[in-house]
Every structure is written in C-alpha cells, then in structure tokens.
C-alpha cells in the first residue's frame, strides 16, 4: 500500500446553522488521482480549504502529508501545490518572471518542466499577467503549480477556461505526475469527460456528505440503468440489487439504477418476475453517474 497523503476522519464544518461538510472520511494515497465531485454548494471548496489549512474544521480530524494543515509551517506547506479557478498572481509579473520568482521559493522546483510548459502553453513571450486572457492566466497558474514538484497537488476547477489543446497538455502532465508514484493529485472539476480517463478514484459529495467513494472502474462494472416495460416494485428489485434510484416512468414503465448489476443475478431476477426479461440495461459513464446521483428533483433511495 502506498503512503497516505490525505486522511480525514469525520471531518465537519459548520457555518452557523448550516453544515457545509458533514462527517467526511477520506483517504488519498500517493500515486492516486482523486476526482472530487459534487454539484455547486456540495461542500467541495470548503473541504479543499480545510485541506489547505485555510479553514479550521468544526469537528473531526484532517491530516495532510502527515500533519494537521492548520499547524503546518512554511516548508511543510511548500509540499502542497494549489490551483483554483479564482487564483491570481501579481498583475505586473510576466509568466517568465513568475517562474523566476517561484524557482527561488520552492526548493524542489522543476525548471526543465517549466521551460517545456512555457513553450507548450505558448507563454514564453506574452506580457504581464494582468494583460493576459483568461485561458493564459489559467495556464500560468497551472504551470506554476505543476513545476513546484509538490507531494500533493490540489486543483479546484483548474481547467475551466482552457482550450482543448491546453487541456490535453494539462491532463498529460497530471498523468505524468501520477506515474511518479510519490505524488497524489486531488482534482475537483466539472469537466467530467476529462476526469473520466485521468482519475483512478472518485469521491462524490452531496450536501456535505460522501455518497460515492472508490475506484471509478469498479463502479462502472456494476452501475446500470435498467428500463422495465412492466411495473416492478422497489421491494422486488431491491431484494436482488443495490438500488440507488427508482422511478415509475409511467403506468407500465419502471426505471431503476443499480450499483451492483450482474448478468447472472439479473437472469435469476427475470426468471422470477415475468415480463422483466426484456428489460434494457445501459452502462453509465461518469457524467451519467454524476447526474443520476445528485439530481434533486425526485425522491432518492437511501444510499447503501
């Protein structure tokens, strides 16, 4: 088992009456890329701010690289790199000047990578940060974070505003980092098709609570949307499968989403309930899963 980079236990944050993060148990190992998902307001940014030591938890514990981020000194904090959607660097710096500055500040700085990314992101001869386009600003901040050679890379919507080519470069670089096995990447993004291929684990937050946490590939094996052309009761289907959503689409149609589909068990189910053998089963990609698990409009089944 790889080194633990992030560990939280029952991590909780309240703002007055409101519980923003509710009893979060997380564990991220070195070499892993965690996709941290949730609808707006689900508690992602609050969690990230606690991981960064910017916010003090109301309850529970958080450890980043072996210590409480709230207590970390500067050299410990330098081992975590951070990019957020709203982050900026001083407006008068050109990307090249920012690199010079950061190079002095971070002992593990990767200058070769900085040179390479300056070219690939086409930032070598651009002007001061304040004069850059939104995409160029993002690329500058991403470059600075990647070259820090940190042990933990926390990214909050890093790729929003990037064009496709820059996103590809970014993804490729994040995968390179994961190959080094010493670093963990904590990636929060709404660009689910990007996450689909890059992450190994996904964590889905809904109203401050963890509703899905594990290997994306494992979820894909079992998660299916099943359309029945006959009425099927929740009790019937729940006897055989872990149901995460149940909907009577019409008098005769039932739509069910299950976490642990398996052909043989489905055949057994169909043998017992006539009319169900013609059901159609659809696999789901990450985006389908996300929508399915976070939709608010219908009554949800209590998650296992």
């Amino acid at each position, binding site marked *: 088992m790889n080194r633990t980079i992030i560990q939280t236990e029952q991590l909780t944050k309240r703002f007055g009456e409101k519980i923003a993060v509710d009893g979060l148990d997380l564990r991220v190992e070195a070499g892993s890329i965690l996709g941290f998902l949730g609808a707006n307001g689900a508690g992602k940014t609050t969690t990230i701010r606690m991981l960064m030591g910017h916010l003090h938890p109301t309850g529970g514990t958080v450890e980043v690289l072996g210590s409480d981020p709230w207590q970390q000194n500067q050299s410990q904090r330098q081992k975590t790199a951070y990019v957020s959607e709203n982050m900026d660097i001083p407006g008068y710096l050109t990307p090249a000047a920012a690199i010079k500055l950061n190079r002095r500040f971070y002992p593990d700085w990767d200058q070769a990578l900085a040179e390479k990314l300056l070219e690939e992101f086409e930032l070598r001869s651009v002007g001061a940060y304040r004069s850059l386009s939104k995409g160029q600003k993002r690329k500058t901040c991403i470059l600075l974070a990647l070259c820090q050679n940190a042990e933990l890379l926390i990214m909050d919507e890093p790729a929003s505003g990037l064009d496709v080519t820059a996103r590809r470069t970014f993804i490729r670089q994040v*995968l390179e980092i994961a190959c080094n096995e010493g670093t963990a990447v904590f990636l929060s993004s709404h660009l689910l098709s990007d996450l689909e291929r*890059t992450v190994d684990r996904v964590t889905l937050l809904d109203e401050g609570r963890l509703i899905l946490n594990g290997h994306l590939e494992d979820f894909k094996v079992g998660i299916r949307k099943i359309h029945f052309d006959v009425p099927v009761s929740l009790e019937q289907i729940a006897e055989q499968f872990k149901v995460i959503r149940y909907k009577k689409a019409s008098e005769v149609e039932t739509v069910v989403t299950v976490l642990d589909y398996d052909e043989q068990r489905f055949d057994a189910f169909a043998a017992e309930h006539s009319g169900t053998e013609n059901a159609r089963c659809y696999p789901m990609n990450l985006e389908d899963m996300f929508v399915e698990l976070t939709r608010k409009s219908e009554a949800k089944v209590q998650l296992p």
Partner: protein
Amino acid sequence: MYIHIDYNSGKPILHQAVEQIKWQVVSGKLLPGSKLPSIREMSRTLQINPTTVVRIYKELAHQGVIVLRQGQGAFVSESSQKQSKPEAVEAIRDSVRAALVEGLRLGLEKDDLDTLMNEEYHKIKANQDEPDNHSD
C-alpha cells in the same frame, strides 16, 4: 500496439483494454515473449491513469495472457496454451453456449452458426478484422 478506448461508453477501460490485448495475442499481432509497453508508456499512449494500467496488466497476468517479471516488465506468455485441451474447452464453453442461445433466439439455424463460426475463425487467423469495441 494500437488500442482504441471509448472513454465515454460507460464500459470500464479495464475491460476494453484487456479484450483488445487478448485479441492481439490470439490473432498473432502480439507474439509470445514480446514485451508490452511499460506502465508509464501505456499511461501516456492511452492517456489513462497509471493505476488503471496496473490493473489491466494484473488482470491479463491473472488470465495467463501475459507474465509480469519483476523489474523487467510485462511479456506475452510463451505458451498461452498451458491448459490442457479439455480444460480449455471448459473455459470457453459458457461463452460459446451464450452466443449460440442468442443466435437461436434470433432465428439462426445450425448452418448459419457453423458458417459464422468459420468466418470469424478465418478472420482472426487472417489478421484482418479489428475487434468491435462498441458492442456491450
């Protein structure tokens, strides 16, 4: 080594890759003893998480398609026919039966099925056909 992954199909990347590598081995595109790309190379080429590559290789090793040699990498097994013939027959009996049942259900007859079996066999041996990645 060309592998095509449909990232958004919902089908696990692991299954897609294992299926295609196995196909390359049985069709002779990947010869016994040949070395597979390193974890890092594979992660780069397919742009997928290295942990997923590790899982792909472990699954292939588990199925006897490849062997993992410590510090050297992954190699196509020298003899994928380590199983005796009766064992091999048992190993594929279920999938053959499932395909037959489906064919009969769709109204095919024995001759059609024989022809199909022959056609697919020759395609594989002739290295022509690419596996269908989109069926599920």
